[in-house]
């Protein structure tokens, strides 16, 4: 449905967005690649010359590398699993008739508005602190020894915090999708003798396919670069150092830009692997 006029106009109108994003992607990328091949210590002598693949080798050989990849993936998968399962259940519940549905929805959405630094601080201190935190008080009230969540169950705690932030998003998308489910389809299935479980499995869940895809796509994009939650809570200690955080420490804390840049290149490669994997699934599902 287009003419030469509109096609050339389209190219022109797309240009600013494409050029800006290309620049935003390429300029720092090229600089990162450049630094990754150099010994560059801004506070200890600056640029000390070409070192080939030394930075790559030492970054990958460092004992922190593989654990950080594992932590990153655990975090992403853990949060996705929790938000999707709880999200589906919650969406099913919110889709039922009830009193005060609007208010409940507001309560459920609220965590999405909370900035990561705030939610990390609040969970770390006010909820999870073993001495004065709310959960500590609760544990003591029922006669249990309070847990120091962020050091004893660090990974689980961070997954919990991040899931809390993202659950509203998953729930809302799934709820919206649920509400678009044609009720005649459900009634037809009921007439065909399908019980509640069968109806969920054969009609509801397939109908939610696209919504689930969107949740996975968007959340993965944001989860791969989780930063503030770890920065504020554990500072990467207790086995919660993600790849992002490891690189951050190399660049800003130990001021080793060359090494950090090599790490950055690894992170970009990891992100690309995940991206290709995701685009495969999502590209298909989003065509509708």
């Amino acid at each position, binding site marked *: *449905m287009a003419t030469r006029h*509109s096609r050339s*106009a*389209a190219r022109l109108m797309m240009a*600013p*967005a*494409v050029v800006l994003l290309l620049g*935003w*992607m390429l300029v*720092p*990328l090229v*600089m*990162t690649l450049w630094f990754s091949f150099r010994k560059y210590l801004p506070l200890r002598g600056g640029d000390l010359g070409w070192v080939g693949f030394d930075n790559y080798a030492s970054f990958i050989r460092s004992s922190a590398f593989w654990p950080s990849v594992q932590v990153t993936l655990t975090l992403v998968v853990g949060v996705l699993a929790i938000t999707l399962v709880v999200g589906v259940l919650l969406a099913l*519940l919110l889709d*039922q008739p009830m009193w005060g*549905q*609007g208010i*409940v929805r507001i*309560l*459920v*959405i*609220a965590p999405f*508005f*909370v*900035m*990561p*630094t*705030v939610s990390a*601080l*609040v969970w770390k201190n*006010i909820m999870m*602190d073993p001495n*004065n935190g*709310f959960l500590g008080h*609760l544990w*003591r009230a029922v006669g249990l020894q309070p847990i120091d969540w962020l050091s004893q169950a660090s990974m689980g705690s961070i997954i919990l915090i991040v899931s809390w932030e993202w*659950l509203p998003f998953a729930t809302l998308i799934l709820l*919206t*999708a649920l509400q*678009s489910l044609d009720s005649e389809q459900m*009634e037809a299935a009921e007439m065909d003798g399908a019980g509640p479980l069968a109806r969920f499995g054969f009609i509801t869940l397939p109908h939610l396919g*696209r919504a689930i895809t*969107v949740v996975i796509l*968007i959340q993965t*994009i944001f989860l*791969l*670069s989780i930063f*503030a939650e770890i920065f*504020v809570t554990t500072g990467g200690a207790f086995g919660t150092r993600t*790849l*992002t955080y490891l*690189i951050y420490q190399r660049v800003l804390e130990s001021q080793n830009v060359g090494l950090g*840049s090599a790490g950055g*290149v690894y*992170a*970009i490669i990891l*992100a690309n692997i995940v991206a290709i994997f995701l685009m495969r699934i999502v*590209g298909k599902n*989003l*065509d509708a």
Partner: protein
Amino acid sequence: MARMVSTRRKTINTVLAWGVGLIIFFPILWITVLSFKSEGDAIRTPIEVLTAPWTLESYATVQERSNYLKHFWNSVILSVGSTFLGLLVAVPAAWSMAFVPSKRTKDILMWMLSTKMLPAVGVLYPIYLLFIRMGLLDSRLGLTIVLMLINLPIIVWMLYTYFREIPGEILEAARMDGAGLREEILYVLTPMAVPGIASTVLLNVILAWNEAFWTLNLTAATAAPLTAFIASYSSPEGLFYAKLSAASVMAIAPILILGWFSQKQLVRGLTFGAVK
């Protein structure tokens, strides 16, 4: 057809949903309570906290100590500014993708989204250097541009999905009626897409408001928005519960209120326009 549901079933649903809703909302509720208590009362047991006298002293201290208003304005300028800059660039691009699609449209869209997957930390130092060179470090302008760039793919994608719901025939009618490209976008497309654009704006203001990597790493005193303001409470002195709570409430309240007042657009926006 809607079916009659028994009152008993509805009661069970209501109790369950309110229970879950309150658990999810609880941390926010609790800091709101703590923020109105004195520092000494805030660390007592929950029952004692609830019965302790209410006070505004924490709010006063926070404003006095860290100039809340300045950071608040920085947040407003950064989030609103970056969103509107983004719209300027994204509306034409989304028009192209939605109404003059080519074989590559999907690829370009996916590529744009994939730039969001590039780990920010991987390019932190180069950006940091560039910012120093250009004198943009700790400036609102620099940060506005960065926030615009990181949210641009999402703005384009959302607008694209909203624009696609608008029948192409209407734009063709405008063309037949003698409208040029500018008039077509200004008088026909944009007014028709207002709900979608509103959702996009809301969501992106929120995302920018809450962005906590670049805002923490590229600002110091002058341009620091609320994310950085609150991070200063992560030091041990942050263990003053009442003040931490007051600061947190002040950081999230503007967005919470904005979100609640514009729930309809927001719910639509929260789905990134991808689910109907």
